């Protein structure tokens, strides 16, 4: 296996918060996350709201300091970098933020926003002429007009703003871009435009993406591999089609089935509707974290945390799941639905 561009091992992040009901003040937002991203690859990251996706992204961007675990980018740990080397790392890893409204300063115009990174990385485009040319180029790349450089963020629609965010991330010619729900604020036709853009960039520049999204249809479209998160842990990873077609963790299965399908036949699908709410990350369940909502849970699930198991994938790709009772890969979803129907 080739050396991955970015490797994360055992990453743990705890937030200190005021007391919860049980008196706990430590919120484990990330709990031993291990992942790899290859060069030119797109890793999709899905999971319920609040499971730690954004925290993972922010930790990778060194906006948060992890308690434990390592990040390796081309063999070096970015958290140990200082000065020039740190700046260089900053240049190579960029992020597009979840909220296109909040991540742009409303008092700057689009051109200034896109050019902002160069204020720190002066050597990249030393003359103002070069910078202006590059801004125009970037605007063009993300499908905006050169004249848009003068507009301020509120003059753009949500989709256009997201594109400005992408242009800003591209300004430093990074090797990895972390995209935190880049399309969930967009409507369909704009979403299509943005996805096309990302796709082209990857083809042309060989950028790697970590693509966070709720929308499974979109993830399926863009990602080479998917990681599914639940309460701060990666519970399943594998090649996209493998995970989508043969989910092995009950939660993944539930997620897949909950995703609405554009099916105009009008027939009601059977779907797994999970019982109960996501448990509070402050007081996660013992043993397997999903057991409180899992229809397959047994006594052992409450006692022993499942270890990730390598599962056989029909197409030979690496498929990992963290479950004591992984689903049968052949039965697929139909079997699951039957099981739920009988359980409830």
């Amino acid at each position: 296996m080739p050396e991955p561009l970015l490797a994360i091992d055992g990453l743990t992040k705890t937030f200190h918060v005021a007391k919860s009901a049980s008196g706990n003040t430590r919120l484990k937002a990330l709990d031993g996350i291990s992942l790899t991203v290859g060069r030119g690859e797109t890793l999709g990251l899905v999971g319920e709201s609040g499971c730690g996706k954004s925290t993972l992204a922010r930790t990778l961007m060194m906006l948060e300091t992890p308690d434990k675990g390592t990040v390796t980018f081309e063999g070096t740990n970015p958290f140990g970098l200082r000065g020039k080397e740190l700046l260089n790392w900053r240049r190579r890893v960029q992020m597009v933020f979840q909220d296109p409204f909040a991540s742009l300063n409303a008092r700057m115009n689009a051109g200034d926003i896109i050019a902002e990174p160069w204020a720190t990385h002066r050597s990249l485009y030393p003359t103002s002429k070069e910078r202006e040319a590059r801004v125009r180029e970037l605007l063009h790349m993300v499908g905006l007009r050169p004249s848009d450089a003068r507009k301020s963020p509120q003059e753009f629609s949500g989709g256009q703003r997201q594109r400005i965010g992408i242009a800003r991330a591209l300004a430093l010619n990074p090797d990895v871009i972390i995209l935190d729900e880049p399309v969930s604020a967009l409507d369909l036709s704009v979403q299509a435009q943005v996805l096309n853009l990302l796709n082209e960039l990857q083809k042309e520049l060989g950028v790697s993406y970590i693509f966070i999204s709720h929308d499974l249809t979109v993830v399926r479209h863009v990602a080479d591999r998917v990681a599914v998160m639940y309460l701060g842990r990666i519970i399943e990873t594998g090649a996209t089609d493998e995970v989508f077609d043969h989910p092995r963790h009950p939660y993944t299965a539930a997620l897949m089935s909950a995703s609405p399908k554009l099916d105009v036949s009008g027939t009601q699908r059977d779907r797994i509707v999970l019982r109960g709410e996501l448990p509070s990350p402050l007081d996660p369940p013992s043993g397997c974290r999903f057991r409180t909502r899992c229809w397959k849970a047994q006594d052992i699930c409450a006692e022993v945390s499942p270890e990730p198991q390598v599962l056989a994938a029909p197409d030979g790709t690496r498929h990992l799941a963290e479950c004591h009772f992984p689903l049968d890969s052949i039965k697929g979803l139909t079997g699951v639905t039957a099981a739920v129907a009988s359980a409830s």
Partner: protein
Amino acid sequence: MQSSLTEPPAAEQLPADSRQPREHTKESKQDGKLGLFRLLLKDRFATASALILVVVGLTALIGPALMGDLATKQNLLFANKAPFTVAHGWEYFLGSDSLGRSMLARLVVASRTTLSVAVPAVAVALVIGSLWGVWAGYHRGWRENVSMRIADVIMSFPSLLLAVVVLYVFSPSAANIVLILALTRIPIYLRTARAESAELQSRTFVDAARTFGAKPSAIIVRHVIPVVLPTLLTLATLEFCYVMLAESSLSFLGIGIQPPDVSWGLMVSQGRQYLQTAWWLSIFPGVAIVVTTIAANVLAAWLRIATDPAQRWRLALPRKRLIARIPVKETQP
């Protein structure tokens, strides 16, 4: 309702030559200023306020040179002459004071002292308090705690004592009054700036700047200050009023501006003895204070909206009764 106020013409109509982006930016900046000015003209109250402030400013700037002598020329036989008559010459149109000096000239000369106390006092407190507060709020942690405690200390410290000390150790002068007023008002800005900055530093666009590797100082300058500034400026205009009043209260207690210097506050304070015999001695400077502060406040309120891209539309909003319906062509089936 299409007025010249509308934004620059749609992008497509601009000269397509994008090889001259510099000119574009220049143009747009001019546009912006012009736009602001036109916007100002649209609001009658704001325009009037701006005019008043300009007049006051000019008066303070050139007035003393024109009227300085007149303001000190005493004539004991001509004391406390009533205003609103030109019988004694134009310079006594606003009457004369208890030493027979021209009220008009004294008001003009006092405007300079007043502004040269109020403006620097507000400016110094604003700059120090804001920068400090922004810095403390951005970094949080002990810097924030220590700063807030310092603010508490200054707030609960009797400013009068400070005034007496400064006037004792140094001498009573406008500069020292500026020093006292600035020092005691720093916490106001400090607190506001800290609160806003603490909130801002958790915003996503600040995080975005961090991911480029921008230094805290650069982020503060680029992202925090421009957002906090309008609030602080509005606060500063309220404070402008406060400082003028504080200065007159110091005069009342005998530790403010000292004659022969003259400020509006001092004039009000000294004129109070004559309220029943020569009302104009304290009414005119009082009116000057009130009018100036109202004008400053109105303009600040306006400016705050006008510089906020998200609120600017409010100003240019046509009144409800003026709505012109846009006719819509439609074919009937």
